């Protein structure tokens, strides 16, 4: 079934539970949701009725981020307020059986193969990653999402310099859309 999800993150609310080191991020007021967990410490919260990302929960936020590759974090501290400007556009087409995911405005771009049926979308100007697409989505979409997320998680905790170029670039692209400086200051 074809669908389009357009989402912005202007009204982001943060709650940090200092006693247990859990960070609750809510896009708008907290709403009932189910979690898609990426490992056990990161929960992406989705409203089940009209699928929308409504928040993130990070368990052991300070502990986890103290172990993330420092080169990924240090470069991000000056990027204040990126999340408020971020937008996600997810589009699934029946005709092509392709899921397209963008976190920047559509712009002249080209595709770079990430793996079998996953392609990273890079802007023509600058070569930044602005999204990705997954082909043969009906049969292989779930496996492709797992592969993408696994690659990013492994990149987060890898020894610097050991991560493949595309996985590293995709991880950086996502982190750039989180207001890491603000998150760390909340948890300080």
């Amino acid at each position, binding site marked *: 079934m074809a669908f389009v999800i357009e989402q912005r993150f202007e009204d982001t609310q943060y709650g940090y539970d200092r006693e247990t080191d859990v960070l609750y991020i809510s896009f708008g007021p907290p*709403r*009932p949701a189910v979690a898609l*967990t990426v*490992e056990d410490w990161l929960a992406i*919260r989705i409203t089940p009725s009209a699928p929308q990302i409504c928040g993130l929960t990070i368990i052991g936020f300070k502990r986890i981020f103290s*172990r993330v590759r420092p080169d990924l974090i240090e470069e991000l501290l000056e990027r204040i307020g990126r999340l408020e400007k971020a937008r996600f556009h997810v589009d699934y087409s029946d005709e092509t059986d392709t899921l397209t995911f963008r976190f920047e405005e559509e712009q002249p771009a080209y595709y770079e193969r990430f793996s079998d049926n996953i392609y990273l979308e890079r802007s023509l100007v600058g070569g930044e990653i602005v999204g990705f697409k997954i082909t043969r989505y009906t049969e292989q979409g779930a496996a492709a999402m797992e592969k993408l997320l696994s690659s990013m998680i492994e990149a987060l905790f890898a020894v610097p310099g050991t991560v493949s170029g595309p996985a590293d670039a995709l991880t950086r692209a996502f982190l750039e859309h989180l207001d890491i400086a603000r998150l760390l200051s909340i948890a300080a």
Partner: protein
Amino acid sequence: MLESGLVTILTADGIDAELDEDHWKTHIVKGHPELTPYQSLVIETLKHPEGVYRSTRDSSTRVYARSCLGILIGETLVEKINLLVFVREKNAFVVTAFFAAVMWRGLGERIWPL
């Protein structure tokens, strides 16, 4: 609801887990409002989980997992979903909990039952 400020629950793997009423309200349910009517399920999951796992990236946290049937998330009835409850080993404090529809990359090393 909890009758007193703190409830101690003997978990399946032998920990006296502590669930604090104030923490339940001000953090767990505030961040995850779908849990409001399901505090008894959280306690049940600690007592009778289907599995207990050591968190993948934080070995000091245990994850209690149990599948639940007929859970209302807002106005949507979910037929079957997993409830995950997190307990910090150091002080046996119940850290947080949520319903997980999808678990990519699993839950870490299973420590109960062995």
